[in-house]
């Protein structure tokens, strides 16, 4: 069964995306839409294919069939490095920070798509005369301030507690001033207080930004999402408001027999593929 929901203005959507790895059907004609200015949830049991949806959207995985549309246009041959310039930003399941770069450098990197000066000009320009470098630094510090991690700017990721690393990763996604944020389990491995703050933060971004949230913590999902898509074994099995999804028998069945994910701490790996 395919689930369709009438959506007026999806900013980002997948249309009948199918993906298989080695004969295994990972996504089966998945069509989901993210209305502009909304927080949209994408939930489902482990292995349902949520990260794979992100991978298709960001060009890491080529679908066997189907298409991704952004702002009404089909994304064809998307180059991953163009995404931030187009306004699409993603965080990885886990942290995905560069361990040998400081927090500030990690966040500055998120603005790479906006660096205009060429390689040679940049390499030759002396740092103290390089206005662009300073501009990016300022933006990075503003993003870190928004996430409350400015005081960690000169530390390496390994020196920070896990929840702080997650905030730095969020700052990196924010620094390119994205229209759409794809967040893959931003609450993984963080405590209740941090999670409440994360919920407030996500809500504060809309409607200027649009958020697609993959998350196992149901209370967070139910609290912040306007719309939720439910994926199970590569298929969309339900969609609707938090109320509707919570009471949907298909969703209950999919989660039945599943462990309680809220205590999952398998977040130390960066899942791209």
């Amino acid at each position, binding site marked *: 069964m395919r689930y369709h929901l009438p959506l007026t203005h999806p900013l980002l959507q997948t249309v009948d995306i199918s993906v298989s790895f080695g004969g295994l059907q990972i996504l089966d004609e998945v069509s989901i839409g993210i209305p502009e200015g909304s927080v949209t949830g994408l939930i489902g049991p482990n292995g349902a294919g949520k990260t794979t949806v992100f991978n298709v959207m*960001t060009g890491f995985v080529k679908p066997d069939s189907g298409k991704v549309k952004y702002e009404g246009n089909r994304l064809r041959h998307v180059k991953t*490095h*163009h995404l931030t310039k187009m306004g699409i930003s993603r965080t990885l399941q886990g942290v995905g920070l*560069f361990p040998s770069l400081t927090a500030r450098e990690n966040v500055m*990197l998120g603005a*790479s*798509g906006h660096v205009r000066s060429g*390689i040679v000009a940049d390499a030759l320009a002396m740092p103290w005369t*390089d206005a662009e470098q300073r501009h990016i630094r300022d933006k990075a510090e503003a993003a870190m301030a928004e996430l409350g991690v400015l005081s960690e700017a000169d530390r390496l990721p390994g020196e920070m507690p896990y929840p702080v690393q997650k905030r730095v990763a969020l700052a990196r996604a924010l620094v390119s001033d994205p229209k759409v944020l794809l967040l893959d389990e931003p609450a993984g491995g963080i405590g209740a207080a941090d999670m409440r703050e994360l919920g407030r933060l996500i809500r504060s971004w809309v409607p200027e930004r649009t958020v697609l949230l993959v998350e196992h913590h149901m209370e967070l999902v139910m609290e912040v999402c306007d719309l939720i898509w439910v994926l199970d074994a590569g298929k969309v099995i339900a969609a609707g408001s938090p109320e509707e999804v919570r009471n949907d028998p298909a969703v209950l069945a999919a989660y039945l027999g599943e462990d309680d994910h809220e205590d999952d701490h398998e977040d130390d790996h960066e899942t791209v593929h």
Partner: protein
Amino acid sequence: MIDFIDYLLGGISSGAIIALMALALVLVWRSTRVVNFAQLGQAMFTTYIALTVRELTGSWFLGLIIAMAAGLVVGVIVHFLVIRPVKRLDTSGAIIATFGVLIALEALAAMVWGGDPEAFPPPINNSGYEAFGRIWPFSPYDLLVLASVVFLVLALSVVFTRTNVGLAMRASAFNPEVARLSGVRVNRMLALGWAIAGLVGAVAGVLVAPLSTLSPTSFDIFLVFAFTAAVIGGLDSLVGAVAFGIGTGLVIALVSGYSDSSNAPLVALVLLVLNLLFKPEGVFSHHKARAV
């Protein structure tokens, strides 16, 4: 004791040059995870270009600058024409392909410039300074070599640590996919790694030529030393490459001084084996043991 000091002094400039060569190998390894066995072949080729420019214009410095530019270009060409197509199929193929590039460059050089060794005289006095009533094995040319290497290493470290491009290169080397997601044009950064390595190798070639001779194969031996230094340094550590490059130069100078210079490659290999046995991840690497 005075012998010991003499040997060490005599090894400084060749150590500095080996450091540059190791640095070039590390730059390529960091960007594409390929050991470039053609690195010194490229350096040989650009040194011939420097020689030609020098013969035409009489300027050593102009020869150096043209060789550096040629090094950049050759690095980019090798990356795009050979490494990228082959690497798409498999990585070990790319490493073998660098041997192919080495052989091709040596053959091409022999065709263009002939196979006989050419003299590449130093641009300034290469006889030792006199002080305290004796001549020390350290010349104005050695000083020039040392100054050039220090300048280049400092310039590179500024680029790597202080610029957007340097940041993007470090990120691309560590995790290309996350770098791409951040908006980094990773393929360009990899090509830039090959280009800078080509430039660094070109400087090393021009600097080392007066200390040996110039023939299509005369730099081959330096590959052994540079490779040893790069591996002991951890293959992806720029600091390690420089430190162990100089160290290797000094060890070679001591071995050559106390025994015979023909023993130097053997000693380098012994160092390499000891390193692989006892600290296979390299001294400066932050990665776990590597599978090479």
